[in-house]
């Protein structure tokens, strides 16, 4: 298929009003908040050396925190604040999506605004400031009608930088639940949909450049004292805001939101659930690319209504149990724990997506390795790769403890790349996912965990507390329970990683429903 006539371009385009509108909304709000905080601070601190260096130092430190981490940090912070506010004042607020994204991005925008405002104000000729005083201006009048207007070109340059940073960094707000142009990038990376990745990057770049150019027009207009330039830039920005915000505001809010974590299987299952809800006449949309630390809390607080998690993940990560129980016992206990938080464990989908040590079949056979225990004696000369979280998860500690495993080297990788890496021999072993379609594709083999060091990972369907008694929702998704086996899920995952138009999550979800709907 021709790259340019690929149907995924039009699929990407269909999402644009929603993603772009949300992106602009979060960026504009963050920038406005950032300015509202930074400008008074800069003005207050400009002639006080100690507060000034403290302020600039703090803003610089914030700037060194990677955008993704800054955004992620705000979520638990706000969650704690929300529960405090609920306990003390009787009302809570959503710590999910918009609010943490706006706060983190506003902080991120502060440095260039602070720095340029201070530089701009201190750069105004002292003779002019004295003249303002001499003709009888109060300090406030001098600031507003002389110093700020003269500092404005320098300040605008800072605002431009801040705007470009905020628009770029806003793509990282997808994992904390804020829809943005980052949705293309995160979804595209996970499902190997390079059209989406490219589209997302281009859209964000065009938006950033467009805003930058309009702000530049205003800046030059101010510098050269040309009112029409300033007006033109202002009108352009307003038009951009209206054009991007109106379509997304006009959309009817969907009543059900299906959450998905950051990997392909989750995208497919979320699409499948949304399709089942729509087939039942309910309006539903998906909120994809949520971090696994965010998604459960988002369900508890009702920001999303339904999603698929894995029993072992909740057991070990969410509820911090280090003991490993047999499958049925673990599920029963988990159900009870979840019920305490008013979360409904509706049931299992029928397959497990567990962590497992995986290596090429031929190599394993040549070395006579069939189980994890067989690996122990050779591990000292081997390297292992896993996703970003595995080595800090209790499963890894459990494996090491149960078998006495110690590898020569450990590497962290983007999950999509580690299968290829182990197949090519770049690493010897990976901690893969049992439902991953790439295991079959690359002719890899899952090493048996004979000591049951890794807990069971049944895929389970969870409902938000407010949806516990929702019969329409239950009826729509119940046909999925127990009907997806590991072979089907692996094939679905492989299709989702296909890299063509038939591999979009919704297309794969339709294919999966065709297979299981008949059961």
């Amino acid at each position, binding site marked *: 298929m021709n790259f340019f006539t690929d149907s995924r371009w039009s699929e990407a385009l269909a999402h644009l009003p929603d993603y772009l509108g949300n992106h602009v909304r979060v960026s504009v709000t963050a920038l406005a908040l950032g300015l509202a905080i930074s400008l008074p601070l800069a003005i207050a601190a400009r002639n006080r050396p100690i507060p000034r260096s403290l302020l600039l130092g703090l803003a610089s430190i914030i700037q060194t925190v990677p955008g993704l981490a800054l955004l992620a940090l705000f979520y638990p912070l706000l969650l704690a604040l929300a529960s405090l506010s609920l306990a003390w004042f009787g009302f809570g607020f959503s710590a999910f999506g918009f609010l943490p994204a706006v706060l983190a991005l506003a902080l991120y925008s502060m440095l260039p605004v602070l720095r340029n405002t201070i530089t701009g104000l201190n750069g105004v000729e002292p003779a002019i400031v004295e003249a303002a005083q*001499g003709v*009888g201006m109060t300090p406030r009048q001098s600031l507003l009608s002389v110093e700020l*207007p003269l500092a404005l070109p320098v300040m605008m340059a800072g605002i431009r930088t801040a705007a470009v940073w905020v628009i770029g960094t806003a793509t990282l707000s997808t994992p904390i639940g804020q829809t943005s142009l980052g949705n293309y990038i995160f979804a595209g990376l996970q499902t190997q949909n390079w059209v989406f990745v490219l589209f997302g990057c281009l859209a964000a770049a065009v938006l950033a450049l467009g805003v930058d150019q309009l702000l530049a027009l205003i800046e030059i207009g101010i510098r050269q004292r040309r009112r029409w330039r300033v007006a033109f830039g202002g009108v352009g920005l307003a038009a951009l805001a209206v054009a991007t915000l109106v379509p997304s505001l006009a959309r009817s809010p969907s009543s059900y939101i299906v959450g998905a974590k950051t990997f392909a299987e989750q995208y497919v299952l979320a699409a499948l659930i949304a399709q089942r809800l729509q087939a039942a006449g309910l309006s539903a949309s998906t909120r994809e690319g949520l971090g696994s630390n965010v998604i459960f809390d988002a369900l508890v607080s009702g920001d999303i209504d339904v999603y698929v998690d894995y029993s072992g993940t909740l057991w070990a990560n969410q509820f911090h149990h280090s003991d490993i129980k047999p499958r049925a016992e673990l599920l029963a206990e988990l159900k009870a724990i979840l019920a305490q938080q008013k979360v409904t464990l509706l049931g299992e989908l029928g397959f497990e997506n567990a962590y497992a040590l995986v290596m090429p079949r031929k190599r394993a056979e040549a070395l006579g390795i069939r189980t994890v225990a067989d690996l122990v004696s050779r591990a000292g000369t081997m390297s292992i790769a896993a996703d970003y979280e595995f080595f800090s998860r209790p499963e890894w500690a459990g494996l090491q403890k149960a078998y006495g495993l110690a590898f020569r080297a450990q590497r962290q990788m983007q999950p999509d790349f580690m299968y290829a890496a182990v197949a090519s021999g770049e690493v010897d072993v990976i901690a893969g996912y049992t439902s991953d379609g790439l295991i079959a594709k690359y002719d890899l083999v899952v090493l048996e965990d004979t000591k049951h060091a890794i807990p069971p990972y049944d895929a389970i369907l969870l409902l938000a507390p407010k949806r516990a008694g929702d019969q329409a929702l239950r009826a729509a998704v119940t046909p999925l329970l127990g009907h997806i086996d590991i072979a089907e899920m692996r094939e679905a995952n492989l299709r989702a990683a296909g890299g063509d138009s038939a591999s979009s999550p919704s297309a794969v979800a339709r294919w999966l429903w065709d297979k299981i709907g008949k059961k």
Partner: protein
Amino acid sequence: MTAAPPLIAFAHVGKSFDGGRVKAVDDVSLDVAEGEFLAIVGGSGSGKTTLLRLANRLIETDSGHITIDGEDVRAADPVSLRRRIGYVFQSGGLFPHFDVAGNIGITPKLLGTPQQEIAARVDELLDLVRLDRAQYRDRLPHELSGGQRQRVGVARALAARPKIVLMDEPFGALDPLTRDALGDDYRALHKQLGLTTVMITHDMTEAILHADRIAVMHSGKLLAQGTPAELSNSGDAYVGELLRTPRRQAERLKVLLPRDGAA
């Protein structure tokens, strides 16, 4: 000297900078009568500009008293004090983002004068400083020559009809012709409007030509004050040195430029 009370009176005024290390103004007592044109002459660092700024509280005195119209300036609100006193800055001090009319009308605007009245006053002042209304009203300062800028600076100082005008080396950066023309024009305005003017200059010739009385400052101290004739009788070596230059120049000019030839 008249018997009437002085309009501006400096009494034992002192001001130091850098925590007392630099005495910019050291025990200066000086009276300016109503309607008088006083020039303060001195080299750089003599404290003359500091003395002027103390008068409208752009800086505050350390010791002594300054009274204007019998009122201690420290008892006055500094902002309304400055609105009552015209101030002409070195090289204009015009606001680069305001047009000529905006610069001239600023103090009336701050005082809440109605817009129409300000516009009429701006035109009147443009006539007064001999700038064409239609041509200059809407120009920005960077579109003006140095002399035109300084004329706007004078017009701005006069806008709120002050009794007192303080001028800080107003014509220092101008070419000799412009400087002379502007000096004569201002002297005429001073008389016409009944102003009391204190002008700072480092140029004794300029002081002699325009001022009624001259005060000489050196290292923060007031060395001498009086009419040019009174100053010639001063026994102070520095004052004598300052007067020698214009005198010598005048003699040289008499030789080099005989009157009949110039006509």
